């Protein structure tokens, strides 16, 4: 789910998806997913046997490489490096993007002035931002993470701006009458209303970010999944390329299942019991 590109998921889905899951209802989809993935693996294996080539290894071969890389510790070292960059870029992009988005959504005149900037940044290719960041700030970690975050920030701004426009003023007025402090307003008034938008921005965000992180690593870092893929590309070792890719997709899936979905379920628990 994480690997799916953002944008195609509506807000309603993002907010409501976890509300329908119950133990009985989750068994069938899980079974379907397993069978579907097994089918894909089978097809892959058949195709690899039909056209044997070093450029098109079968699943068994990829699995062997995966075990070898895991045993040497390389796999976890590079996965960890990439995961760290994904996490850092994600938090920077979400915090900066949300702050800007909420400001633009709340102040119409600021929005009118800065909207062209947002559109401009939305349309700058990721590669350009990465290259410029490396040229201006050097081949370092901050430039790498910053470049990824800058690529993601305009998307977050657009989503959170929608969220801020949809804020219900009556809650803010209630908070004003009862003299809520700034922290209480944030925790109990603002964030709960923005939650579906935060969830939508997060989901499309993680997917986009990890793809860009690989490019950043390929161009200017000496570790991470992107660096490894670059290395094995020069060696024409497709099995290793696939091994690293699949390993990272698996990591992202686990994060989705064990972190993102439970957090979302918790945040939307009040929706689950309609009167």
């Amino acid at each position, binding site marked *: 789910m994480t690997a799916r590109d953002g944008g195609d998921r509506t807000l309603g889905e993002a907010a409501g998806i976890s509300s329908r899951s119950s133990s009985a209802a989750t068994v069938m989809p899980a079974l379907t997913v397993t069978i579907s993935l097994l089918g894909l693996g089978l097809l892959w294996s058949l195709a690899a046997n039909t056209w044997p080539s070093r450029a098109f290894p079968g699943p068994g071969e990829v699995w062997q490489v995966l075990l070898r890389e895991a045993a040497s510790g390389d796999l976890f070292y590079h996965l960890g490096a990439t995961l760290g960059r994904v996490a850092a870029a994600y938090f920077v992009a979400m915090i900066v993007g949300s702050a800007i988005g909420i400001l633009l959504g709340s102040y119409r005149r600021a929005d009118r002035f800065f909207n062209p900037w947002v559109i401009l940044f939305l349309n700058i290719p990721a590669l350009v931002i990465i290259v410029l960041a490396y040229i201006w700030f050097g081949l370092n970690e901050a430039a790498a993470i910053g470049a990824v975050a800058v690529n993601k920030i305009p998307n977050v701004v657009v989503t959170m701006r929608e969220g801020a426009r949809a804020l219900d003023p009556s809650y803010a007025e*209630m908070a004003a*009458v009862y003299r809520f402090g700034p922290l*209480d307003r944030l925790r*109990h008034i603002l964030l709960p209303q923005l939650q579906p938008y935060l969830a939508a921005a997060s989901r499309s965000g993680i997917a986009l970010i990890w793809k860009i992180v690989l490019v950043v690593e390929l161009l200017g870092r000496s570790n991470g999944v992107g660096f490894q893929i670059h290395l094995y590309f020069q060696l024409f070792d497709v099995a290793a390329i696939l091994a690293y890719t699949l390993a990272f997709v698996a990591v992202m899936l686990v994060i989705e299942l064990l972190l993102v979905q439970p957090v979302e379920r918790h945040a939307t628990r009040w929706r689950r019991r309609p009167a």
Partner: protein
Amino acid sequence: MQPVGAAAPLRVDIAEKTFRSAQGVSVMALKNLSFEVQQGEFACLLGPSGCGKTTTLRILLGLDRQFSGSFQLPEGGSNRIAAVFQEPTLLPWRTVEQNVRLALPKDLRAKNLDALFDTLGLAGMRSLYPAELSLGLARRAALARAFATEPAVLFLDEPFVSLDGRTAGQLRRLLLDVWSARPTTALMVTHNLTEALTLADRIIVLAPRPSHVLGVFDIGLPRQHRGPDATNGLLRSFHQKFPGVT
């Protein structure tokens, strides 16, 4: 029973309040509106729909500062204000109890609310979310929130509209119960004359837009003596004093 709260009354003196729409159309909602509510008194603002009652309350609540004139909220006591809005305006993502406690100042957050929840019949509903409440129960929760803060002055904007007659009557009795336990200066907006005659010490009658005070109707009768017959009598003398106001 000792009236709690303020020594100074609630004093309102709004010279003018005009709305200007984006298209340049202006609507004068209030013109020379002035009245007072004594400390510990329950007053009703009665006026036809659209005359500017909600506008007046929003000014007094500090939510609308675009007006000319002045007002003075009761001083002393807690200095807090509380409001029951036309809609319950509970936070859907917080339980009933959290909704009530969040409105309390930090030093009262942990206070015992059992008696209040009991009086309002909400004892079993404290851990429910607002979506799980009927409108009547949500309105009770909004009342609980307002009274829990022990305000110096309480504003209510038609808190019982769109309820069926029986539920509205029940809620009026509950309102009187909690209010009598701690008589607070209260100003309630309504366009229901019978409701005003049941609840209020005084009724401030407003003219249609642009609104000003037509006159004040003092109900001398203590609330416990306002049976059906007495209420009919009050209705008659009200109509004598304000012919044409329903």
